[in-house]
């Protein structure tokens, strides 16, 4: 692919609001996970909750979009002057030429879950004020963002579970490459809800402790939430050497199982291989891999096999989910921004909470922050249904 530039980016997660808070947390190896006290949930697990989401107010004309997911989206858009960058892009290109490509897995379903507790005792009807399109539907966050910035270009939610907001980079890139648009707001927004907390618990995939990716005794994930965005545009011929570029994207399907990865990581491997081919890079060009690394026994084992089969055991890798939790539909975008921070600062964040290495996992897993000049980094995202996506980011020079 022709490289695109991430001209602006921002991330809000349990590590904090915006890039500098996220960077500081990564540099300090700080964990954002806390014991779950979310809503009425009674589960022994840790979560990555964004502070202050309930206090966010949407602009009055867009009140019908009010739900936790859109509040989190709004909070995220207001960090790092991202909203000003979007407005400037709209000014430059026109509202028809700026697309919105966002990933989410559960959208505003928390609102529906709560509405189901308040059904009419006789008719079973949902409360009067329940707004399906504004809150529940997966498109709600995309529609909200489009209306906030008065956009009139292509807009879509990508919903491939935990790879949703990685795939948006690939989809938006195709629309820019074919000259349908000049810029795209890409990103992911996913927020805590009962469906995912109780759902992953039902699959016995949540840990009672902060998740421990790649640990020998890892026993599940910690669910998080995040809003992460990038403004994707064509890179100028003479890009600023500091510029962060999207160099390649690779997609694949496991064709194996709805909720377990292919044990040898075949789909993961082909997604990474496709991303390298798309970028015209070899495995030796990749300086760091931000792993999907959920902390479930099966994911980390399959991903390790895939990485080792393709890259061998020397490329530095880590999962940042021990710090952020698994932001599900927002994880791909959150980790894309973490990769951008890594490239900017020459920082390879060490994975948190690893007590004992798993001898079965042969990859070069970092447990402490490492510094080094980074030119190319790879980010992995794998979702239920075997929907895989790997993204390659780099510096212009």
């Amino acid at each position, binding site marked *: 692919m022709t490289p695109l530039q991430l001209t602006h980016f921002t991330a809000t997660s349990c590590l904090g609001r915006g890039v500098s808070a996220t960077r500081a947390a990564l540099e300090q190896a700080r964990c954002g996970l806390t014991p779950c006290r979310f809503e009425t949930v009674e589960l022994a697990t840790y979560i990555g909750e964004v502070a202050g989401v309930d206090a966010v107010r949407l602009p009055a004309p867009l009140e019908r979009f009010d739900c936790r997911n859109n509040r989190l989206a709004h909070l995220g858009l207001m960090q790092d002057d991202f909203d000003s960058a979007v407005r400037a892009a709209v000014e430059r290109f026109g509202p028809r030429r700026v697309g919105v490509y966002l990933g989410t897995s559960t959208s505003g379903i928390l609102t529906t879950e709560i509405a189901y507790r308040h059904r009419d005792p006789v008719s079973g009807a949902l409360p009067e004020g329940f707004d399906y399109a504004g809150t529940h539907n*997966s498109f709600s966050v995309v529609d909200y963002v489009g209306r906030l910035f008065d956009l009139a270009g292509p807009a879509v939610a990508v919903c491939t579970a935990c790879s949703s907001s990685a795939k948006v980079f690939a989809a938006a890139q195709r629309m820019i490459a074919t000259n349908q648009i000049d810029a795209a707001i890409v990103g992911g927004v996913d927020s805590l809800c009962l469906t995912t907390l109780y759902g992953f618990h039902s699959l016995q995939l949540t840990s009672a402790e902060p998740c421990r990716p790649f640990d020998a005794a890892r026993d599940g994930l910690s669910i998080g939430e995040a809003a992460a965005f990038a403004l994707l545009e064509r890179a100028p011929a003479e890009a600023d050497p500091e510029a962060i570029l999207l160099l390649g994207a690779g997609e694949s399907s496991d064709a194996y199982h709805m909720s377990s990865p292919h044990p040898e990581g075949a789909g993961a491997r082909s997604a990474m291989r496709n991303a390298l081919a798309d970028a015209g890079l070899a495995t030796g060009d990749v300086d760091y891999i931000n792993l999907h690394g959920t902390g479930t026994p099966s994911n980390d084992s399959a991903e390790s096999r895939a990485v080792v089969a393709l890259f061998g055991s020397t490329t530095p890798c880590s999962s940042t989910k021990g710090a952020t939790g698994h932001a599900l539909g927002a994880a791909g975008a959150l980790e894309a921004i973490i990769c951008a921070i890594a490239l900017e600062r020459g920082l390879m964040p060490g994975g948190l909470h690893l007590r004992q290495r798993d001898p079965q996992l042969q990859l070069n897993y970092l447990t402490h922050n490492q510094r080094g000049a980074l030119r190319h980094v790879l980010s992995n995202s794998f979702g239920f249904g075997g929907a895989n996506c790997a993204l390659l980011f780099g510096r212009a020079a």
Partner: protein
Amino acid sequence: MSTLSACIQSYGLLGPGLADWSAARAVLSGELPHAAARTVLPPPAVLPPAERRRAGRVIKLALAIGAEAIAAAAGTAAADARLLPTVFSSSGGDGDNCHEICATLASRERLISPTRFHNSVHNAAAGYWSIAYGCTEGSTSLCAGDASFGAGLLEALSQLACGARAVLLLAYDADYPQPLYAKRPIPDAFGVALLLVAPDTAAQLPRLELALSNAPAASMVHPGLESLRASIPAARSLPLLERLARRRAGTVVLDYLDTARLAVEVHS
């Protein structure tokens, strides 16, 4: 702006009173009247028995229209489902499953079934498709609310423009049970699959060219079909399908977002 284009290799369709593409083509071309009838969703023969039993309406719908398009392309280079990238696009996913989960979460026990949970993802149909056909190519699952058909068409054509030789687009929606039905009254299940191939591969096939437009969207003359178009997001494809069924060249404008329509130029 460069134009996105594709040729249509084959079709799959299922909707109220429209049992498959050949039945739909006869209705859309005016050869047969449209008889209103509930959509009949066949059990997905490609799934193993356990999954077949548990498959919800939306999964049955998506697998049925996809299977029809693949079968109709038999003998062509695009017919090998293992090698086909897929674009699944749906406004709401599996409404019955969603209702069951929300009802369970509103109860005291809150014990969701693991199967219900993994079937709750929007890409469940795509996951089952890839497993059933052994397809390891890339697959995406989209939602753009009422604009989901247009969003899927744009995505599929952009994949072709970026080098894919063929892409299977599946756009489908099924009705919610109450109480969600009252808030999102999709009356019945409707789905359309288009097996799209790169325009340089097949000069004898109908070809589409796609562009964003401000023109008003076309409607259907037949009141029954117009009611489907207006009430089921995937059925917003009907004016295009009507033109294709009648083999009539020209431009048709499809509903897309509030802020944009899609102008589709058909070269038959």
